[in-house]
């Protein structure tokens, strides 16, 4: 059994290497990302927590299966977010084919106080209203807003997660903001 004190100090990339040697080390890697990725899935999908947890389990299993394919030119966080992104999209497509009733839940979103959108809206906004709008814009736009303003990913990380050119990230983000704004007008929501 690895010594937790030691392994906790290691970088993600080092733990990847150690996980390939001993599968128990993978636990430490998952622990680092469990909450972040769960929140990410909940923000994107608005699924019940149990469903989001099922998706997350699949993400961790897939990441483990593909651990030898981890591209060391990327950050591990970008790599696992990408797997999570793919899994959410895949799940979302399946749900589109077989629509199911999903319980609307309060994700209890925690905003980063450093996020620019938070600073801009902090005084007037209502978190519930933001979620309401966010859930009504297309998934591809919702995702870039979540990655940028909730998970605070930079453009390079977003490009790696979404597997798009850097320039496309900026375009997507602009369209997402526009879509968000249009939805607030359509829904007659004022912040």
């Amino acid at each position, binding site marked *: 059994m690895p010594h937790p004190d030691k392994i906790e100090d290691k970088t993600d990339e080092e733990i990847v290497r150690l996980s*390939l040697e001993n*599968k*128990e080390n*993978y*636990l430490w890697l*998952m*622990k680092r990302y*469990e909450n972040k990725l*769960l929140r990410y899935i909940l923000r994107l999908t608005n699924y019940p927590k149990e469903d989001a*947890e099922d998706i*997350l*389990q699949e993400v*961790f*299993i897939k990441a*483990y*299966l*593909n*651990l*030898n*394919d981890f*591209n060391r*030119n990327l950050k591990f966080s970008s790599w696992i977010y990408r797997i999570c992104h793919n899994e959410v999209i895949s799940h979302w497509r399946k749900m589109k084919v077989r629509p199911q009733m999903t319980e609307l839940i309060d994700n209890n979103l925690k905003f980063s106080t450093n996020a620019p959108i938070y600073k801009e809206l902090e005084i007037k906004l209502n978190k519930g209203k933001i979620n309401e709008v966010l859930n009504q814009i297309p998934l591809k736009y919702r995702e870039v807003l979540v990655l940028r303003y909730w998970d605070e990913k930079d453009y390079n990380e977003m*490009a790696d997660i979404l*597997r*798009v*050119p*850097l*320039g*496309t990230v900026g375009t997507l983000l602009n369209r997402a903001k526009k879509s968000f704004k249009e939805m607030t007008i359509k829904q007659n929501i004022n912040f």
Partner: protein
Amino acid sequence: MKSISEKVVKKIKEEKINPLPKWQFLLKDYVIWTAAVISGLIGSLAAATIIHVVLNRDWFVYLSTHRPPWQHLIFDLPYIWFAVLLITILIADYNVKHSKSGYRYSFYYIVALSLVFSLAIGALFNIGGLGERADSTLAKEISAYRSVEKRAIELWTEPEEGHLGGEVTKVSEKSLELQDPSGKTWEVDISKAHLLAMSQIKVGKRIKIIGRLIGENKFEAEDIYPWIGPRPRRIFIHQESMLPENSSMFK
């Protein structure tokens, strides 16, 4: 209650799940890059043939025909090779996008890069004679394909349009005898063409002549060019140009 991470570790242990071996991912990468290289080489061959066709079509003659030059241009462009080049560029884009870091490049960037690569390697291939070989091989395999050679034969058997070509069978001071590709023999008056390099007009040599039809199997030459060559090198020119006999442009 167990966390998700703990549940996953338990599942990994119980179901004896192991990471997929590295060679599988390496093999996938090799397949993608090998396909990219093969499509790049095919694209370069297409580019080489396009370069060969463009350099060796007798475009200059189109200015002296009755039909507008754009009609010749549309008729004579090597569309099949343009299509091959386009397909290989799209395959290159697909391959690059499916490589580990290829998603970072935009479609336009990959297309531009593939085009530059294909043209550069294609130019080298063409210097090595691959463009000509591909052009003539395809002409042998597909009868409808119009190679540089086939098109040249068509073009230079239009005496009424002022173009005549064929093999020299007899040479005298003021005329020569020519057999066109259909086997017909022509008497060509070369008295109005200024003689600059008589040594290049030999029996058995193939030439192209611009001039006019002056009678039954009779033709009057204005300009004469050798049959093969990337650019037509003039053997005879009009008298009025008065170029010196040893001018380097005719060598």
